[in-house]
């Protein structure tokens, strides 16, 4: 008998890192690594479960920028090239380690794994992984949903409501065009919610979203079931709260599963270990050492403990053990809550999809083992998606979540601090300019020069608004790149707006920008128009050069 539900929610997102202006570009590897280590392994897990007739239901959000990149011809070609190089390296490694009994099986493992990845990617799904995810949705095992257009951090964009509205509506429209239906759910970027946002979500047709635990627990009215049932805003859009216990077990770098000594060590990589001459063809510019993805060691221990060779069999066994632990933990959680509830408790466990496989190499196997364990030998916990839950339990307590995020400190500190605060005056000003131009030129004929300029300006604005840039600035990881992307997108935006105001541009430049930032081909800048002010007040200061 089902006593409670578990909702596994994965959020797949990467910023738009397409760079056709360079023959090779380091940040495109973010996508390539995620395809190899995360998306293809997840697809492989779901294929395997389907083939074995194991019932399961996952929820997966795929961001519009990720979908755009997965479907992009140029990036598909470049990924295949990248994969070929990886296979070549793994082949060389098989030869290099032929006398090393510890590492030779690992080199072979990587070679086989990459060959299998190429088969799934190129042959089985025709280089378009979006097709694979759509197939799982149609098979009834995956509930796909979406996020905002470029993962904009909405609470810090809301000074111009049209900017928030465009992020949300373009996200839904992108999903509709990609998957042929509307998404019921939305991953509000970084779980960053503020009261009032539910109205925009409702306008876009979304029926549910997610907040962090404190967002639900500090809702306008105390949640009767704590985190174990969603709340609904007064317009009926439901909010699911992240369960902190199951999050910690997977997320925590200290006491979470991925830190287990038997798992593969993320940081020890042959890109840093081997002779430069040998590894040069597979690293950045042949000079700068980077992760290649071939890693031969396990976490082993803390501190300066010498790293031991990775043992895949042992790691897989540990992943299965952890999956069993996860199931037992949820069962206890549910058992404790079910006594006081008039409906089965729901545990919502959302994670970044890229955690599984990329950061936590054994993560996909953990998911596989988890589903198999839930499907066999127990009937207390049922895997459910948020959409399914709302269909089964449509009457939900009315209460609006509190403003919150899932970032450091639970609010907006991560995206607004001394290292990234400089971006907001520019983002807000750009939104103001966009609204002004969209309002002024609402009647511009489709396909005209100005129409194209403003559509492209809207794309640049959306790309500048990505929450990834301030996040990277805060984390200090790829700060130069994040700063450059922000400045470049703002420069392109102002160039395009100036040209639109004058209705004059050197068309080659416009074509170049259209080719560079080629996502959202359907985007209509009029989404920014302020319908309440369709005629500009003459006395008002204009933010746009005339």
């Amino acid at each position, binding site marked *: 008998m089902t006593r409670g539900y578990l909702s596994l929610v994965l959020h797949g997102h990467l910023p738009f890192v397409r760079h056709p202006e360079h023959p090779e570009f380091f940040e495109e590897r973010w996508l390539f690594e995620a395809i190899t280590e995360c998306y293809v392994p997840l697809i492989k897990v779901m294929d395997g479960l389907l083939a074995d007739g194991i019932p399961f239901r996952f929820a997966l959000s795929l961001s519009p920028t990720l979908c755009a990149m997965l479907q992009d011809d140029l990036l598909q070609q470049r990924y295949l090239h990248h994969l070929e190089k990886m296979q070549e390296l793994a082949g060389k490694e098989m030869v290099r380690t032929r006398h090393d009994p510890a590492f030779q099986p690992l080199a072979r493992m990587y070679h086989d794994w990459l060959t299998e990845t190429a088969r799934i990617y190129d042959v089985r799904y025709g280089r378009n992984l979006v097709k694979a995810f759509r197939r799982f949705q149609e098979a009834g095992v995956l509930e796909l949903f979406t996020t905002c257009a470029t993962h904009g951090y909405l609470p810090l964009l809301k000074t111009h409501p049209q900017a928030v509205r465009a992020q949300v509506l373009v996200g839904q429209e992108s999903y509709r065009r990609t998957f042929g239906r509307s998404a019921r759910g939305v991953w509000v970027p970084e779980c960053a919610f503020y009261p009032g946002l539910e109205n925009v979500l409702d306008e876009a047709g979304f029926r*549910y979203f997610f907040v962090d635990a404190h967002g639900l627990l500090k809702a306008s009215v105390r949640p*009767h079931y*704590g985190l174990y049932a969603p709340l*609904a805003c007064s317009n009926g859009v439901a909010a699911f709260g992240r369960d902190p216990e199951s999050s910690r077990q997977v997320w925590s770098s200290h006491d979470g599963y991925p830190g287990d000594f038997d798992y593969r060590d993320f940081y020890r990589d042959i890109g840093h270990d081997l002779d430069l001459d040998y590894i040069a063809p597979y690293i950045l510019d042949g000079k700068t050492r980077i992760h290649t993805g071939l890693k031969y060691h396990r976490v082993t221990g803390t501190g300066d403990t010498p790293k031991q060779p990775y043992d895949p069999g042992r790691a897989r066994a540990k992943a299965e053990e952890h999956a069993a632990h996860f199931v037992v933990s949820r069962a206890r959680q549910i058992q404790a809550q079910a006594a006081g509830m008039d409906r089965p408790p729901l545990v919502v466990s959302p994670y970044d999809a890229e955690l599984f496989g990329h950061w936590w190499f054994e993560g996909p196997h953990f998911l596989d083992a988890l589903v198999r364990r839930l499907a066999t030998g127990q009937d207390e916990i049922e895997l459910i998606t948020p959409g399914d839950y709302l269909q089964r339990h449509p*009457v*939900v307590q009315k209460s609006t979540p509190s403003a919150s995020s899932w970032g450091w400190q639970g609010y*907006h500190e991560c995206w607004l601090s001394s290292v990234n605060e400089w971006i907001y005056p520019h983002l807000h000003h750009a939104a103001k300019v966009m609204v002004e131009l969209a309002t002024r030129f609402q009647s511009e004929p489709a396909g005209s020069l100005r129409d194209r300029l403003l559509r492209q300006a809207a794309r640049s604005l959306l790309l500048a608004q990505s929450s990834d840039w301030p996040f990277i600035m805060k984390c200090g990881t790829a700060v130069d790149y994040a700063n450059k992307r922000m400045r470049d997108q703002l420069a392109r935006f*102002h160039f395009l707006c100036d040209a639109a105001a004058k209705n004059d541009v050197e068309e080659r430049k416009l074509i170049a*920008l259209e080719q560079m930032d080629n996502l959202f081909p359907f985007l209509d800048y009029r989404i920014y128009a302020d319908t309440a002010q369709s005629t500009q007040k003459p006395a008002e200061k204009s933010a746009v050069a005339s």
Partner: protein
Amino acid sequence: MSHDHVDKDELEDALIPEPSAEELRSVVEEISAHYPPPRLGTELVLLEVNPHRAHAYWTIDVEDYRSAQQRTGLEHPPLVLRLFDITDGTPPEQALTAFDVEVQGLQGHWYLDLWKDGRTHLADIGFRDAAGRLVALARSNPVSTPSAAESPDYHTLAVDTAHPAGLRITDLILDPHLSDENTDVETGAALEQAAPSFAAPEACAPGPAPMVETAPATVAFQPSTSDATTIVAWPDAPALPPPEKLQADVQAYFDHAAEQSAAVPVAPPWQGHRPDADPALSRGLTEEPLPEGWPSAEHLAQLTPADVATPVAPDPAFTEPSLNQPAPAATEPTPPAPASAPAPAPVSLDQYVGLSSFEHGRREVALEINVELHLFGRAKPGTELSLYGQPVPLRPDGTFSIRKPLPQGAVVLPLLAVDPPPASKG
């Protein structure tokens, strides 16, 4: 339409070669080089950071700046952010609480620490004239901070999420006093708390932490712990807590503030005067000179070790330095004390705390930054207020304003308020 027909424009489009990577690179590099973000007009924007903090940024046109400056009639009027609490829809002009933060620059930003969570604020930026009135340059958007406390108690409305309009349909909550969450609903027996049949977590350290032995409590029944940092009594608030509690609260607050402001200096909040009859932005916040004996940072920087034991007179020319702005033009560096200088006389704890940045300043360093704490607020008129046992002078209306240099590291400020004796009956 015939498939053989080819539109002339389509043909021309088809003949346009796609830009090469080189051309793309050339275009984007040119655009990035020639289109820096434009200079912004006069505006002030507030953003929420967390329940107790907001962020303000502003830009001011030079012409606006000069014009407003002239209207004050002062040569160097202070540029201030004036923050209004408009939580209950109160117009800013009638806001019960407001405070000023002195700022600098045509373009800048500030993190504002707020006493209370769950409030709505709005700010003006402008020059404060001699009467305390504000010659405003811009007004911000309102910003609402979330509550740091738990949700208010239940009420029982539910919505049907399946209904297109999310129609309210029914009372949902059956019984807020749920049965014991550690009791089996069917048997009534206590749920087993023993570890599950899973390999002990320590076997794979640093893997998962030990199992949670107690199920997460139903949050609905936890008592509220809100307002833990509210330490100042307002006219309509209950009496101040006992001194020990007050001291503990002060310490907790400053520990919290120190943690919060490690990276970015923050402005201390202050509950200002109730607005007087002046309309709009014309009411002011007065600030009295420093009480005698409280040295300014500038004075401290100019002291020699021999001066340490000497009381320091307030600097009449003192202007509050901005904590969050680029440093002003460099001044003559204070020469390090000569090695032959006499050792400072022993100082009291009070002076040590107050002068410790000077203590650090005696060493020769590449860069020294001193921070001054401006404590200001108000108490019931007649209250005896003391800091480190030193009396803090209160103005007739109960407000006070003192400045102390901040030492390095954590600091405890034992601020003690003693109620005035009850008035004797005639």
